[in-house]
């Protein structure tokens, strides 16, 4: 208990230190339009809620962003989970797809941006596709790992009870790899958000990412900082929601760790 209190105090101290450093850096720079301090940012953050014009802009931008994240992530789930299963279960699929999944996964996501700009333009479709491309490989790889590493003794048990291939899949491999699937989904969600924001930053006209870029370019760094805070809160809330869901789904899994000092 004591140690917990102590570490919370240190944590609070680091937060204070961070704000002070930020404040000092802004004071030294002394150009609020370019680099706003914590106070201006807090004021701008309050404006997001109190100023109806800004408020409605933010709500619209947030909607655009969230809808893109939703479609990109949903598409990645629908495509990623089956592919991950096929690759984990069937050698042929593994042989044909593994090098591709690994290769595409290794490509820095930003490389997709100019391609999409050419093909689908500065639209939400491009944003969704970029989010999808970034997030789907994290999901495939996690699902694949889970399926491939399902303990063979579990599969043998099912076989001993005359389980069909479909039953092995749904009753053994799926639940056994659920922890990995959940991890893949959580990673995939973070990636999807990242993808949407990257695309919006480049397009500079859409969603929250676009608004952050736009306000920074129009020398309103306080608003841009405040929007980053909004984005942070939304991202963390989404990750947390998925984490809670995943805890529910895999409540049977216990974790082990070493005794620490």
């Amino acid at each position, binding site marked *: 208990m004591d140690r917990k209190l102590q570490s919370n105090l240190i944590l609070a101290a680091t937060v204070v230190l961070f704000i002070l450093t930020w404040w000092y850096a802004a004071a030294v720079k002394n150009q609020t339009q370019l680099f706003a301090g914590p106070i201006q940012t807090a004021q701008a953050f309050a404006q997001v809620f109190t100023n109806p014009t800004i408020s409605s802009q933010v709500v619209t931008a947030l909607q655009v962003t969230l809808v893109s994240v939703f479609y990109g992530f949903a598409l990645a789930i629908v495509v990623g989970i089956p592919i991950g299963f096929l690759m984990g279960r069937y050698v042929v699929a593994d042989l044909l797809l593994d090098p591709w999944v690994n290769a595409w996964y290794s490509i820095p996501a930003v490389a997709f941006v100019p391609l999409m700009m050419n093909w689908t333009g500065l639209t939400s479709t491009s944003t969704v596709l970029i989010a999808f491309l970034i997030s789907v490989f994290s999901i495939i790889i996690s699902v694949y790992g889970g399926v491939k590493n399902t303990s063979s003794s579990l599969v043998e048990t099912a076989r001993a009870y005359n389980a069909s291939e479909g039953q092995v899949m749904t009753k053994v491999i799926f639940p056994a790899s659920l922890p990995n699937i959940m991890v893949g989904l959580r990673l995939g969600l973070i990636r999807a958000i990242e993808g949407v924001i990257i695309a919006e930053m480049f397009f500079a006209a859409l969603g929250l990412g676009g608004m*952050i870029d736009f306000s920074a370019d129009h020398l309103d760094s306080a608003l841009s900082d405040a929007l980053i805070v909004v984005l942070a809160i939304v991202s963390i809330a989404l990750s947390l929601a998925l984490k809670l869901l995943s805890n529910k789904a895999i409540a049977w899994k216990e974790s082990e760790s070493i005794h620490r000092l």
Partner: protein
Amino acid sequence: MVLLIPKSLEEGEGLPEAEAETATGIENPSGISFQKKLIAFIVSFSVFLLLWQLVANESGNSLIVAGPLPVFQSLVNLLQNHIPLIARGAETADSAILETLEVIVLGFALSVVVGIPIGIAAGLYRSVEGVVEPWVSVVYSIPIVALVPVIYYGIGASFTADVLIAFLFSVFTIIINTQNGVRYMSNSLAEVGRTYGATSWQFITKIVVPASTPDMVTGMRIAVGRAILGAVLAEALIGETGLGGLMMIFQATFSTSYMMAAVVLIAIMGILVLQVPKILEHRLFKWKETERLARM
């Protein structure tokens, strides 16, 4: 909030990512022969090229999609430092590649130097974990790209800004993987150190570090990938320098085949950096054996 957030990283985003990562692989010990793999690769690569050509034909507009051949030609030109007339003023390819590599190496090196000690301390000591984990879990959930304008207007479009962004993209992956490697190290190994009277320093150097090296190395490999993303992103979004800048200049000047060649170059860089060390990892950490499911 502070109490809630660490939970979101309890299993670590990094560890399972690491697990998932090592579970796949070029050299997977599932008994598939290299020859089979090569044949499968040639088959699927041909299919890929064919599809690409088909899409290019279908679009009928080489300004939107360039086929594989023109892109290959542009790649060769690019590597010989030929730049299309319309994109004059762009850097030559070799200086662009060099600059991007510098950003990646510096950003990555910085995150290793900063991330490994923090990760080890957070894995070993609860008090450090209590401080580090909330920060890491918050920052890890936020798209770092949102910070690019702040850095751009804060310190200006510069080499330093690019390095800083590459650093920010990669350091958290290193911290998380290192921390997980240390934290989930087998308890019995920790006990061995204590019964043989290891000092704290011996405990860290002779037990903790070797035991968590595979996780650290996996973390570093993924982190290089993140550093590349950060570097190219920063270059493309702010200074229009390096490979990322080149890619955007070609895009803006409708030099589509060159733009796609730059994309291929970046893709190859990512693949080389992430996949080649994976083979080495399998060889280096043979002592970490795994059991696998027999498949159909």
